[in-house]
């Protein structure tokens, strides 16, 4: 191994990891042929895992052990089947393998996996595991021919930290005997929190480990991951598909674990707050308000400790947004007020504009259109001065809503159109969806139901892609009203129920009350109990 030259940074962390990696390579290399060896590797950031696995592969080469990497995309509950499927290449006839060869034969060198593993293909007794059969067949290890080791990545998705009972853990704990069939070393790469959950919640599986290899964060790798995910422009993140948002959240959580390990220096602290901030935004976009609040709270604490007042103001603003979304308007007003004070003291114009906009929304919600218009205008002026196009689009949208509420449909259409143009130019999908929905309402108000339906559908599709649950619920509720107007009461009730389910889970009491009213009215209408009842 010594003659290989690694392109490996010469830092203390990197040296320590190299040593851990050598130990892992030895644990794999020493395994007898056909023996299942469970090895757990702790490494938070996937990018680092990849680099380490690459090095591991190179270290195993001189030992003639092939490292087969398996990337598990998405959540799995039955890892074994996944691994088996991965080990089964295309169909080759089953030949009775020299299954229990005791020792590796040095002369036997790598061929393609399928050539060395004829027993893995269809028709093997392993593939048709019959749980009901009483007579146990002798088990043929998967790697009857050495040497092979499995390196499994991407398991973090199966250990979501908000899932109280990940099915994978139960499966591993109860199914551990079956893993012996793999008959080769198995390396599971896990971030810190997932490893802890495995140890605590799958104790029988954990009991079989032959090694836990803890890799420390390497600052240079964490930095590059950080640049990719934590400092991505807001608009790009909020326009990601729901699945990408989930993945992003996971990456951020892993990165956060890395920075927590890297220490409590001001730079590391600051980064942790930024990561938390980003996580808060993603949770908020996905309608997970409590998780969002939690992340912002933690970020706020760090910003306060660091004395970063601008950061404090920004985070208070975000906390205000979460309160607003949850329907706690008094709390939202308080938080916006605090944020506004600091922004004014610091002369932070951008912060000022953002918070004024939010205060406008609060006023609008209370029906105080004059005050709302004043606040929006003030916000708009600052944004125009600063060239904040995304902000301008948002405020124009709100002004459009005011015009619509006051029956000035032409003005509303003009404002929505302007907002829509900007959103399109910026690629702001969330903004686009919101404004399309408003245009649908405008069409509905003017009796053009076909156009309204088309716009709602378009808005709904985008929101669904984004995972914007709050937006989905609003559009469903609106579609229900359209169906009602067209006389399709049953369809209207069905859509209302769907919307209600989401709205209840989001927890804004005002929205919950409103959708319940809509549902009750439709139910009564359907029963003919109160024919000709007014509609909202």
């Amino acid at each position, binding site marked *: 191994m010594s003659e290989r030259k690694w392109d490996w940074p010469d830092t203390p962390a990197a040296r320590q990891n190299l040593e851990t990696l050598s*130990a892992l390579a*030895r*644990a794999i290399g*020493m*395994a*007898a042929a056909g*023996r*299942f*060896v*469970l090895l757990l590797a702790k490494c938070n950031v996937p990018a680092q895992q990849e680099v380490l696995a690459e090095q591991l592969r190179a270290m195993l080469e001189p030992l003639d052990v092939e490292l087969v990497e398996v990337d598990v995309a998405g959540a799995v509950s039955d890892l074994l089947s996944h691994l088996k499927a991965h080990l089964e290449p295309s169909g080759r006839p089953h030949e009775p393998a020299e299954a229990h060869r005791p020792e590796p034969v040095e002369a036997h060198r790598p061929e393609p996996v399928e050539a060395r593993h004829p027993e893995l293909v269809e028709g093997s007794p392993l593939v048709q595991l*019959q*749980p*009901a*059969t*009483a*007579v146990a067949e002798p088990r043929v290890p998967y790697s009857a021919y050495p040497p092979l080791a499995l390196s499994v990545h991407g398991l973090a998705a199966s250990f979501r930290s908000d899932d109280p009972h990940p099915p994978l853990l*139960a499966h591993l*704990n*109860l199914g*551990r*005997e079956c893993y*012996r069939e793999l008959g080769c070393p198995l390396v599971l790469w896990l971030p810190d929190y997932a*490893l*802890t959950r495995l*140890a*605590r919640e799958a*104790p*029988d599986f954990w*009991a*079989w*480990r*032959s*090694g*836990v290899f*803890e890799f420390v964060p390497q600052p240079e790798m964490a930095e590059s991951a950080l640049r990719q995910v934590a400092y991505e422009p807001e608009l790009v993140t909020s326009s990601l598909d729901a699945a990408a948002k989930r993945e992003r959240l996971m990456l951020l959580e892993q990165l956060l674990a890395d920075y927590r390990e890297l220490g409590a220096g001001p730079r590391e602290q600051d980064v942790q707050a930024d990561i938390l901030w980003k996580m808060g935004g993603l949770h908020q976009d996905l309608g997970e308000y409590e998780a969002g609040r939690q992340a912002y709270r933690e970020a706020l604490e760090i910003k306060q400790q660091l004395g970063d007042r601008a950061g404090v103001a920004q985070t208070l603003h975000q906390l205000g947004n979460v309160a607003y979304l949850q329907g706690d308007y008094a709390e939202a007003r308080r938080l916006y007020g605090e944020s506004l004070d600091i922004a004014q003291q610091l002369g932070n114009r951008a912060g000022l504009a953002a918070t004024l906009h939010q205060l406008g929304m609060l006023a609008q919600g209370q029906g105080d259109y004059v005050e709302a218009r004043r606040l929006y205008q003030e916000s708009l002026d600052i944004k125009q001065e600063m060239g904040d196009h995304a902000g301008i689009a948002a405020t124009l949208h709100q002004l459009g809503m005011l015009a619509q509420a006051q029956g000035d449909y032409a003005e509303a259409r003009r404002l929505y159109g302007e907002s829509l143009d900007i959103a399109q130019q910026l690629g702001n999908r969330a903004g686009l969806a919101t404004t399309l929905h408003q245009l649908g309402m405008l069409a509905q108000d003017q009796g053009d139901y076909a156009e309204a339906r088309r716009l709602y559908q378009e808005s709904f599709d985008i929101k669904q892609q984004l995972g914007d649950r709050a937006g989905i619920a609003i559009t469903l509720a609106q579609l229900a009203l359209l169906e009602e107007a067209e006389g399709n009461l049953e369809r209207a009730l069905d859509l209302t129920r769907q919307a209600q389910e989401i709205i209840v889970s989001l927890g804004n009491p005002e929205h919950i009350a409103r959708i319940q009213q809509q549902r009750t009215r439709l139910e009564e209408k359907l029963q003919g109990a109160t024919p000709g009842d007014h509609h909202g």
Partner: protein
Amino acid sequence: MQPARTLRDAYNAADPAVPLPSGDPRYVDCTDVRGERDVVQQMLKTITWSASNTAQLLTGHRGCGKSTELLRLKARLEEAGYAVIYFEADEDLDVNDIIYSDLLLGMARRIESQLRQEHDIALDPKLLENVQHWFAEVLYTEDGWRQVQRELEAEATLGVGLPEGVPILARLLARVTGQIKTGHDVREEIRRKLDPQISLLIENVNLLILRATERLRRQGRRGLVLLIDNLDRITLRQLDTGRTSHEALYVDHGEQLRALACHVVYTVPISMVYSPMATQLKAVFPHCAVVPMVKVARPEGGGYAEGLARLQEMLARRIDLDALFTGEAVEHLCRTCGGHPRDLMRLVTYACIHAPAERWPRPIDLQVARRAEAELVEEYSRLIPEAHYPKLARVHLRHVVENDADHQLMLYNLSVLEYLNGPPPWHDVHPAVRCLPKFEEALKRERAEMGLA
């Protein structure tokens, strides 16, 4: 099998994932260093000396050698003239979600199939048919049963699943337990239908057992014993009824589990024996055997040389210690494992990984042993919730555990180990846990509170 003389062979000889089969030359009798009583002897006596059928529990820490002892009991019972049916519950049943009727069904299936296959006892077809009719009536409607019967008969002609010539009842039981295990939709339906009929289920299973016992006696056997391993692996869950999954099985339905017309040994999680329901459990199952840890220390302090020597012997059966270890390294590893055989094997595994390959002989010295210990300590730190530390300190000072949820968890995750010097058992914190700084701090605080130095 030659003891391992290379690091590579030693690494493979100390696999923490493989229990020893009965009669394996590597088995070391640890009876006297575990405690005064031999659990196998104790369970054997309970069975052989009893005029009526017995139901016993066997418990012990994860990895303490329960399966090894149970397999020894099987061999001893067979020597004593019993027919033994041994099976692992998790092979047939869904231990993640198991209720007593699942278990009884699984046992019925094993009784029929293992008697037929291992003891060559084909039960009277008339009896099998009667039992089969009973199942058909309880589980299916008339049309449903006709359909199932057609499927089972088709299976039989095609030779699918079970071999040819197997009674339809065997196929039916295999089908039903298979559906229960895989969480098939019909699982709940089967349970719902069996629940009110449970005494009849037991009666029918007992019909099979009684007839089988008659046949066994004619062959000169003394009776039938069922050993159910790995039942202690059922997932600990809080049920809607307010009970845990363990309490529901062993306490609430203990009477049903006792009602079979043969001797039975059930494995039970050690935490159950220390749960708030321990007294009720004892009332249902008066015979509970514990496989304690091998003693490596005395409760009053100081090492326990005989126990350490026995652990060393365990290693010597696998590894040429003189070639690979310095004396102090072996002793250090034996102490650090707390008398827990699987952790001992794991420590050896870690030592082999970290030993310098170029040093020969005795590449594993005290420094390498300490490195292995440090890894085990680090792993235990992952297991222990913050709130446990003060309680762990108290266990260490007083050597007793309380019957509450936290202490149950400590026994469950092995941070507390049980030892025996004659009854009653005593407890101590795993040596690896005692190395954790958080434990040391908690211990200091606890000592101060107790007015100790």
